[in-house]
């Protein structure tokens, strides 16, 4: 099916169309948008191409069945949660592991925007950020600064610092999380 002509329709609009006429073709168009991402998520957890492909198919079937039963508001977050849960369950069955299950509440799609951000003027936020960035450890501060302020790519940062790509990624992600916590604390103190 040629899905290009549906590109202008948002995920939410496709879901609304599906809920209106229960025609599975809308789900096909919607799910197809995420095939590559779902394959990637399944590959990350299962580390096997055949298992990953098999899991994507099962995630599709599960999604089709579930979407007939109830309404989903944030499809992208939801399908990610379905895929991740499926992989964790599969790993548990394979290895007897009991990974923590995710649910829509605990699953975070991206990070929550800073709760106080909208209420503060930019100058106060900038002051808090400047203080919080100084509180990061040396590696996180270096990587966060190079990535967000100097707009360097992971590769460029790895070349400049001598850290591995994985380290760079981890310093940036942890640094961002710590910055958020730091800013919230500083603002509360003020």
């Amino acid at each position, binding site marked *: *099916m040629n899905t290009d002509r549906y590109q202008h329709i948002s995920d939410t609009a496709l879901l609304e169309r599906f809920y209106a006429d229960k025609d*599975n*073709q809308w*789900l*096909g168009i919607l*799910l*197809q948008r995420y*095939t*590559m*991402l*779902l*394959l*990637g*998520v*399944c*590959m*990350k*957890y299962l*580390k096997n*191409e055949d298992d*990953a*492909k098999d899991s*994507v*198919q099962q995630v*599709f*079937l599960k999604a*089709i069945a579930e979407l007939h039963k109830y309404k989903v508001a944030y499809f*992208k*977050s939801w399908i*990610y949660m379905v895929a*991740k849960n499926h992989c964790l369950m599969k790993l548990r069955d394979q290895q007897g592991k009991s990974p923590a299950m995710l649910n829509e509440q605990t699953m*975070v*799609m*991206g*990070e929550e*925007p*800073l709760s106080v*951000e909208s209420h503060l003027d*930019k100058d106060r*936020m*900038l002051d808090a*950020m*400047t203080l919080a960035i100084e509180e990061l450890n040396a590696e996180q501060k270096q990587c*966060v600064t190079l*990535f*967000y*302020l100097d*707009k*360097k*790519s*992971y*590769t*460029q940062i790895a070349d400049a610092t001598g850290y591995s790509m994985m380290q760079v*990624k981890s310093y*940036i*992600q942890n640094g*961002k999380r710590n*910055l*958020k916590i730091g*800013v919230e604390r500083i603002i509360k103190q003020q």
Partner: protein
Amino acid sequence: MNKDLLNILSNSNKDIDNQQLMDYLAGKLSDEERHKVEMQLADNDFINDALEGLENVKDPKDINFFVDQLNRDLHKKLLQKQKRKQKRKLLQQRWVYAAVVIILALLIATWLMIIKYQALKGRG
């Protein structure tokens, strides 16, 4: 003070397209474009996990092939489901048609019997 500091905590809601991901994996993007993709990775667990997983595919050229295969399979399954649904509907409709035919036959038979009865009565 660097205004870009504010961008650190604002999350990007932009979607990344498959081609961009493939180009990123293939190392075809410029440093600036790589940085843009990585900004989305830092903001979005779904894309971040997906990219880490896609990096594990032995031959990156297979990714598009796998995706096409999965999409074909998805549409095949949806078509099968649709056909099953139509078949069920048709089966239900058949019973309705059968009931209509039986009722019509009964009505015609009753009508014929009444005519016959009246004819006999007229003769008698």
